[in-house]
């Protein structure tokens, strides 16, 4: 991030705004490319995002988008199994991939002398991953252990990202278990994987972002050399997954065998983050006002004054990243509390605090400090070149413009107290889904 321009916020204190040098190219096969040179350190971040995630997996194949992500590491057109990992790591780099509701990402952070190698590795699996019966069986076993270590054997493991969507949403794409049921995972076939690849992993359905120590012209040439020969395929049409706000409250109960104390998740369907970004940003600031740190309203009230919860959090986006999903997305409030009888009291307090924001608005200085913090967090998350590549690719994919990141401080500055009041007013009790987690573990 070479330059930072200062802007003024309403109280006159300067708020820095990031300024990035971004370059765009689209290859003839439809691959969208974003380059963000910054030569301050000899490292590069490479990210490839495919426009397919949990919401697009077929019925009867829950968890397939994630299982497929694992298969993309199992060898490709010119690479045997294990070679991808070895080439990245023996070049001094690191790699990973992750599956989200609306997209799947694959990425490397590398010393810049491995830039062409990294591009080759990504292009090779975009051309043709090597999916065999043996690798599929191996990765089904690995994914089952991932689910056991992260969910089944861990208190609050899938709470609430696996527990809330089935209550908050109605349609299969939004409501199903994104990690997958074991029966569905075990039913997956090589043919399923081949079909999924052909349907969703077309170059035209992907964004490639490269950030860091690179020369733009040379990198465009390298990208053309390695990705340009991948045949063009039809870009799949993404269905509209949106669901209207709830008309009446929903409740559900789940039991966690390892959890020692109860927990609650309160979810609301909120406006389309892409089409109604400014309303979405008001929601982001509302989540901070409600639960970010000891100064926030729900922390002051529920943790410090009433002492009914041990912690409380509020966030947008089912993984806690407000810019990770298209419509629909959720506003979520969670809390852990020692006394199982406290649930109604907690819900009443949340409703009261939301109603208070909606009716009385914000205190002097409240919006500005939360906004300053939000901008600072934005910068902090963009510090690593790899995070930068991932963020540019994500904003290009979800919002259609990587440049939007640079505009967020100004957009946040434009949010008014009245906007935050309106966001709070929309989170009314009849619009919420409540999941109560019963503690089944020994104390």
């Amino acid at each position, binding site marked *: *991030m070479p330059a*930072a321009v200062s802007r003024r916020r309403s109280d006159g204190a*300067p708020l*820095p705004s990031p300024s990035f040098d971004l370059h765009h190219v689209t290859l003839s096969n439809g691959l969208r490319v974003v380059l963000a040179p910054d030569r*301050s*350190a*000899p490292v590069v971040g490479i990210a490839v995002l495919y426009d397919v995630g949990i919401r697009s997996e077929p019925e009867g194949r829950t968890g397939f988008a994630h299982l497929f992500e694992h298969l993309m590491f199992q060898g*490709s*057109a*010119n*690479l045997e*199994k*294990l070679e991808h*990992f*070895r*080439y990245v*790591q*023996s*070049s*001094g780099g*690191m*790699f990973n991939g992750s599956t989200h509701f609306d997209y799947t990402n694959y990425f490397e*952070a590398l*010393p*810049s*002398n491995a830039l*062409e*190698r990294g591009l*080759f*590795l990504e292009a*090779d699996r975009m051309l*043709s991953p090597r999916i065999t019966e043996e690798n599929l069986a*191996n*990765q*089904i*076993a690995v994914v*089952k*252990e991932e689910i*056991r*270590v992260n969910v089944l*054997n861990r*208190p*609050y493991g899938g709470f609430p990202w696996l527990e809330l969507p089935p209550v908050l949403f109605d349609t299969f794409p939004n409501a199903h278990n994104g990690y997958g049921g074991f029966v569905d995972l075990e039913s997956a076939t090589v043919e399923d994987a081949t079909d999924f*690849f052909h349907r969703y992993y077309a170059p035209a359905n992907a964004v490639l972002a490269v950030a860091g120590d690179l020369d733009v012209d040379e990198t465009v040439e390298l990208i053309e050399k390695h990705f340009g020969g991948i045949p063009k395929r039809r870009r799949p049409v993404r269905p509209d997954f949106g669901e209207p706000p709830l008309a009446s409250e929903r409740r559900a109960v789940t039991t966690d065998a*390892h959890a*020692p*104390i109860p927990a609650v998740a309160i979810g609301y369907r909120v406006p389309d983050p892409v089409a109604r970004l400014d309303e979405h940003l008001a929601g982001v600031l509302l989540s901070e006002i409600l639960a*970010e740190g*000891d*100064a926030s309203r729900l922390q002051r009230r529920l943790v410090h004054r009433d002492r009914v919860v*041990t912690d409380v959090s509020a966030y947008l986006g089912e993984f806690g990243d407000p810019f990770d999903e298209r419509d629909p997305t959720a506003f979520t409030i969670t809390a852990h509390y*020692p006394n199982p009888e406290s649930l109604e009291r907690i819900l009443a307090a949340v409703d009261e605090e939301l109603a208070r924001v909606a009716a009385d608005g914000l205190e002097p*200085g409240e919006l*500005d400090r*939360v906004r*300053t*913090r939000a901008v*600072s967090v934005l910068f902090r998350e963009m*510090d690593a*070149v790899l995070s930068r590549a991932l963020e540019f690719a994500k904003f290009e994919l979800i919002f259609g413009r990587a440049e939007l990141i640079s505009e967020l401080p100004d957009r946040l500055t434009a949010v008014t107290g009245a906007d935050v009041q309106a966001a709070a007013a929309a989170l009314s009790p009849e619009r919420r889904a409540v999941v109560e987690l019963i503690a089944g573990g020994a104390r």
Partner: protein
Amino acid sequence: MSPAKSRAAGPKPVPPLTSPRRPRKPSSSERTLDNGLRVVVVRKRDVPLVEVRLRVPFLSAKPKHSARATLLSDTVLSGTDRYDRGDLAAAVQALGGDLSASVDADRFLLAGNALATNLAPLLVIMADVLTSARYPADEVTRERARLVERLTIARSRAGVVAAESLARRMYGDHPYARELPRVADVSTVTRKQVVRLHTERVRPAGGVLVIVGDVSPARTLDVVADSLASWDGTGRAERVPGLPSFENGPVVLVDRPGSVQSSLRLGGVALRRDADGYPALQLANLVFGGYFSSRWNENIREDKGYTYGPHSRIEHNVLGSSLVLDADVATEVTAPALLETAYELAKISALPVTDGEVESVRQYAIGTLALSTATQAGLATTLSSLLGTGLGLDWMIEHPRRLAKVTTAEVSAAAAEFFAPARLVTVVVGDAASIATPLQALTRVVPDGQPS
């Protein structure tokens, strides 16, 4: 997938590496203030922010120290002469900042960040906390109750149970074996004890302040000296016994009924970062299980599918370094996973590693050191930890050269010495009814009690 065409022509070659560019040496300044605090400032301008890490030595052999220290760190930000808890948090937030306190067996740490232009006010708030934290009685009472709940939640996790059991197996009743306090001890901690601990130990002499960000090092030193001038005194030094040695023995089994996985943990002795043999041991650890392309991971994950991922790592603490191996495996393959682990340990101790393996981990170690210190937060945290164990920026800058010189024979020798099964201890947390008998078929197994 049918890559038949490209296969027929032979695989495309993987592009070679081009010549590497050296990173710029960061500009830094250092000063020990009149109050005895060592201050290190590094300029790193990638984003207009600044990161702050204030580390104060906190080792103690007192049995209830961990309970008192944890409650201190949970309450230190709950009010000062100028602020109550909410106002303090609001003041930090208005700087685009964050401030948090934590403790481990070695140190008390105040960690923060802010917009770079707000460093001075952040330091003023920190000084306020250091010199006038009030520990209000009702806050101490509430945080004590909250800490008990948090400890209960922590110990409901298999990984925490396993880490505590391994630490007891390695260190007995040494403070390193009771980093997380016992609930019974927390219940007895008084406000007076917490205040006294702050008075005696939260002192500048012996502490280290690291600042990394978009700041001018020389000018920042003056700002720090100015802001923290009112904080003074020397922390009371406490004599803490060295780490006890431990002997290999039977596998310790901790019962966690209904566990769908078993948590395998192995522990051993390692070398400090300034030891001559450390670079070779660091590389041996990577070859064994320290990165994805390691032998252990390629065996029990990528070949057998027993686990989501095994890891081995070297943990550095003030009194010594240790080797820790962990893997969470499906209950039904607990014994086979331990068998494969024993095989890989025996193999790396008895047979030499290859030149190819060493070259791969050498590049990985050099590359990932650069990546992990390429962010302000990463550099600040790494530097604070290095300075806490007597090292510093020089160690970090020179380490790639040390790694470059390590020979394959040195890595093999380090592996033989430190990964020898005879020098490691093993703990397994899992459903004893399912795994005790299969484990007993392999080795001797003894039970371990849960922590109170």
